[in-house]
């Protein structure tokens, strides 16, 4: 019974991952992160992604604050923030978020305020979607680990 649900959870996780890959939300770099996780660093992906969430939310807030400033919009600073967000997104495999950053940056380089506002909307949306899906992924993984933990006493050592 327990074995069945562990397989079920693994299947759920794989299905979700496949969907996210298919949608381009995640790319192969996310797989690379998973491969860096092992017994010596069992929560590596979660730790990195949590840092990414913190950094990203800070950057998104800053971007919005910069755009609210109509008179002296600091497009250069915007570009710097976007470079940071692009970099960290690519490092964790957040493909769609990174792509939106690229489009956003093009708008900021042209000082196109309307374009930037639109891009920011899309960026916030993409980020929210990514965050909720990754949370889902981690929840499934956590259930799987918990389930596996129960099986230990049944193993022959």
């Amino acid at each position, binding site marked *: 019974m327990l074995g069945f649900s562990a397989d079920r959870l693994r299947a759920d996780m794989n299905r979700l991952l496949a969907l996210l890959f298919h949608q381009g939300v995640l790319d192969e770099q996310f797989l690379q992160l998973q*491969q*860096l996780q092992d017994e010596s660093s069992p929560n590596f992906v979660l730790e*990195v992604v949590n840092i990414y969430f913190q950094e990203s939310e800070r950057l998104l807030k800053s971007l919005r604050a910069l755009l609210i400033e109509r008179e002296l919009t600091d497009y250069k600073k915007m570009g710097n923030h976007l470079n940071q967000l692009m*970099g*960290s997104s*690519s*490092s964790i495999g957040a493909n769609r978020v990174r792509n939106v950053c690229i489009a956003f940056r093009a708008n900021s380089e042209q000082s196109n305020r309307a374009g930037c506002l639109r891009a920011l909307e899309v960026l916030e949306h993409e980020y929210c979607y990514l965050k909720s899906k990754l949370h889902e992924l981690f929840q499934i993984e956590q259930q799987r680990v918990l389930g596996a933990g129960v099986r230990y006493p049944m193993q022959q050592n």
Partner: protein
Amino acid sequence: MARTPVFSRRRRSDQIDTRDRFPTSDSEVHVLAVDDSLVDRKVIERLLRLTACRVTAVDSGIRALQYLGLQDETNSQVGFDVSDPGIVNLKSFSYGFSFMNFLGHGFVKKQSLKVDMIITDYCMPGMTGYELLKKIKESSTLREIPVVIMSSENVVARIDRCLEEGAEDFIVKPVKLSDVKRLREYMVGDEKTGSEISWMNKRTVRESSCDEASSSPSISSDSSPSSSSSPSISSDSSPSSSSPPDSVQSTPSPSEPSSPTSTQSDDGSK
């Protein structure tokens, strides 16, 4: 398939063995990683530790220079404070003046472990990776240390400029395990072919590996196959000093079963 809680060398069937260890020499290879992004620092640190390197990660070129002892020739307040000289690994001393200070005085000047390689991001506020590279190559004490540049932008002119300035290699982000494994050749020394590869070849190698990376999601470690019949798990012999500044982390490579990611050993090492 239950996972044993003990550090296992067992290969996972469906993944590359990230615990492939390159044979370590007597002392661990120590890499200084420079990147302003915390996400990237964490990733590069993990990648390096998985290739049996000791890693010190700093968040700017300035801090890197301070760590290397370049920024401030006299007594610098930034860096590690070795409050208990007994735990410092004597084998790892570098830069003669530091050693003499240790011997001659009750206090210990900022101690840095010898750095075998520097890997730095290109785009950083303040001092760019390129500027850091130049400063290192201009220094008589440090110019021998191989420097690798990382960048998320694949700009040929930028790459050429870095390689001409003396960078050992140029990695396009996101950095993968295969990239870091390739760098081992530079760290181990000139007995490997790494230092003999001309920079023209390096560019070709890097470009082709970029193409491979973008073709399919499958990740295979296709660079030099690691010969890890028995990955050496040495006991942690390079303790990190106490109370480093927030932006500087030094973590030894994993050596003990279920060790937390940042351990500080408090026993006198060999």
